């Protein structure tokens, strides 16, 4: 009857359902409702033929847990599904995911264009470590969209950046930078750790490879290190001759051409077959399982993170001890409008603010808050604070600090999901100490 007029709609599972179920089929795992932890190094072959088939990538399956593991595989599929990607590869940390992505893309003599506002460890990787492998980088300020175009050279193999820069909250104009990358025939790689796919799906805005430190909001509990790279599947590796390791026969697998054979999953297949085999930054099944527990509640947690962050922004902006506040929800934030477009479900829970009294006040504040934890992490369910100039970015010289948009009065706040009044009360203690550092330190 009315069926003829009913508009057809795809009934594929939605985000919250995928967070709980994607990548796992209980009927293939003894009916176990929870994902089993496959705590094993290796897997039995049925016979010699089966072993050869697995090694030749003739069929799917597991050989050795450095390359793949069933528990880790569930995590990989789950994150790929949440991001809208074709494939994913989990690693031992976010840094190893970035390194693996770069080494899958580049070889000695290649060049990358990189956003200047990055986690300090990532800056060091691009500035100091990759040149040892013959890979050079040009840094561009994240808001300088045309600067990315100008920095592209003949040997440039990709653009890399954090969608929202660490710690200054500068947002890359991802759709425009993606256009620039694609006009040059190179992929855009985005570290979207701060957003998680709940806040932003970079593939919908032109990114080609997405990287996460799963240690942060994706897991949430702060118990486990993990990273992942996710492939969007749209980038055509065969459009030019820039990526011979993707398109030409690869000696390591009987002349396999990853792009021809695996198309929209070629990058991940190469990262696993070559990168995990040769570098080996594998994720332990226990940590994969721990991260899966976190992802189950991702959207619930992210809503609370974001609502608490917006409350904290209001609180800080009205506070007499605060010189400035940087968060994309602030109307005069330079990227406020861009944030609305790229982060429709919330602007994230990272706030940077300047404390009146400079470095000395910042130190007093950090030393006196009790509920907020002073540590080198972000994205925990608990509220975290750090003074970047003396912590995460302390290995930078003055000029690099300035280029990265850092100042000595800056405090980086990762807002947790505690009761908002308790966080504010804790900050009051810190601000009181900052106003009278000597008095408090004598108490």
């Amino acid at each position, binding site marked *: 009857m009315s069926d003829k007029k009913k508009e057809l709609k795809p009934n594929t599972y939605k985000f919250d359902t995928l967070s709980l179920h994607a990548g796992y089929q209980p009927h293939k795992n003894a009916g176990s409702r929870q994902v089993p932890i496959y705590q094993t190094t290796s897997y039995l072959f049925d016979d010699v033929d089966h072993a050869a088939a697995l090694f030749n990538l*003739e069929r*799917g399956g597991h050989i050795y847990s450095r390359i793949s593991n069933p528990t880790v595989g569930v995590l990989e599929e789950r994150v790929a599904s949440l991001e809208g990607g074709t494939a994913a590869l989990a690693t031992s940390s976010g840094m190893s995911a970035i390194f693996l992505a770069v080494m899958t893309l580049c070889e000695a003599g290649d060049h990358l264009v990189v956003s200047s506002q990055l986690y300090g460890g990532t800056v060091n990787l691009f500035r100091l470590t990759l040149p040892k492998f013959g890979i050079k980088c040009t840094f561009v300020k994240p808001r300088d969209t045309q600067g990315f175009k100008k920095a592209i050279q003949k040997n440039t193999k990709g653009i890399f950046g954090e969608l929202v820069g660490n710690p200054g909250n500068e947002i890359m104009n991802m759709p425009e930078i993606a256009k620039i990358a694609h006009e040059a025939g190179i992929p855009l790689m985005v570290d979207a750790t701060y957003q998680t796919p709940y806040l932003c799906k970079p593939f919908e805005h032109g990114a080609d490879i997405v990287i996460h430190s799963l240690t942060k909001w994706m897991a949430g509990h702060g118990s486990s290190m993990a990273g992942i790279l996710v492939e969007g599947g749209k980038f055509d590796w065969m459009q030019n001759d820039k990526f011979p390791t993707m398109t030409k026969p690869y000696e390591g697998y009987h002349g396999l051409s990853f792009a021809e054979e695996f198309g929209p999953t070629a990058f991940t297949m190469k990262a696993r077959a070559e990168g995990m085999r040769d570098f080996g930054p594998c994720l332990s099944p226990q940590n994969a399982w721990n991260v899966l527990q976190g992802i189950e509640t991702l959207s619930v947690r992210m809503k609370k993170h974001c609502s608490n962050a917006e409350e904290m922004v209001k609180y800080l902006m009205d506070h007499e001890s605060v010189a400035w506040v940087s968060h994309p929800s602030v109307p005069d934030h330079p990227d406020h409008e861009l944030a609305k477009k790229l982060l429709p479900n919330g602007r994230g829970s990272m706030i940077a603010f300047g404390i009146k009294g400079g470095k000395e006040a910042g130190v007093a504040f950090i030393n006196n808050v009790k509920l907020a934890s002073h540590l080198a992490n972000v994205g925990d369910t608990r509220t975290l604070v750090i003074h970047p100039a003396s912590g995460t970015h302390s290995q930078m010289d003055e000029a690099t600090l300035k280029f990265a948009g850092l100042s000595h009065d800056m405090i980086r706040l990762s807002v947790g999901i505690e009761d908002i009044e308790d966080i504010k009360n804790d900050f009051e203690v810190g601000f009181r100490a900052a106003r009278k550092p000597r008095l408090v330190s004598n108490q």
Partner: protein
Amino acid sequence: MKFKVDNNEVYASTGGRPFDKKKPLIIFVHGSGLTHMTWVLQTRYFAFHGYNALAIDLPGHGLSGGESLKSIEEMADWVAAVIDAVGHKQASLVGHSQGCLVTVECTARYPNKIKTLSLMGGAGAIPMNPQLLSLAENNDPKAVDLMMDWAHGPAGHFGGHPVPGLYHINTGTMLAKSRTIQNTLGVDFRACDNYKNGFEAAKKIKCPTLSILATDDKMCPVKEGKKLASLIEGSQVDIIDNCGHMMLLEEADRVLTVLKKFITTNYPPLSS
């Protein structure tokens, strides 16, 4: 490898091994709007075990040139031309979905060329839902999303790809969206909808034939697959539980095991 048919460049994956005229030929024919990449978990095995495994991109699809062919009959003739173009006299055919219509018609038209026929998610006719057909012909990406939804069984919707880290539905979606939808999926769907000769063609088939069907296949249900198989003399049927239309990915190992036994028995590989 690349070669020409009707002056248009044709791309075919060789499963990672060089083409060798001495080896028996298996041609894999993909479904509507898709490409050779849907066969990666079948072709590589055969390529490494004494066969030329050619997963072709139909004209206008994947990496092949030309425009999409507008009828199943034209596609059937084109597949026969591929056998000639690569210098073989005979081949085994493996089809999925629309590829089953094509390979059934090809086998009926060219009985002397075809050694064995393997059908996955096949039926004698694939009438299209009018809304789905209209969406595809109007280049609406929703057509791909609907196809991927219906093509995967309930279990496949959760993922569980045999290759670690790959996610079925998004991979299929990217393949189907890799070229202009109306020029691939739209043309293919119309060709399927128009094709009426499947059951008559099936009656003419005399070569060994295998039908692999799946219990949760909404696009070509088991009932339709069995009906087609019943018309092919001596046809074998294998039914996979908990699996949808994309059986070649959802249950790749099972499909390969059944296919391997069937093809090696009826069309032995070149001994090394």
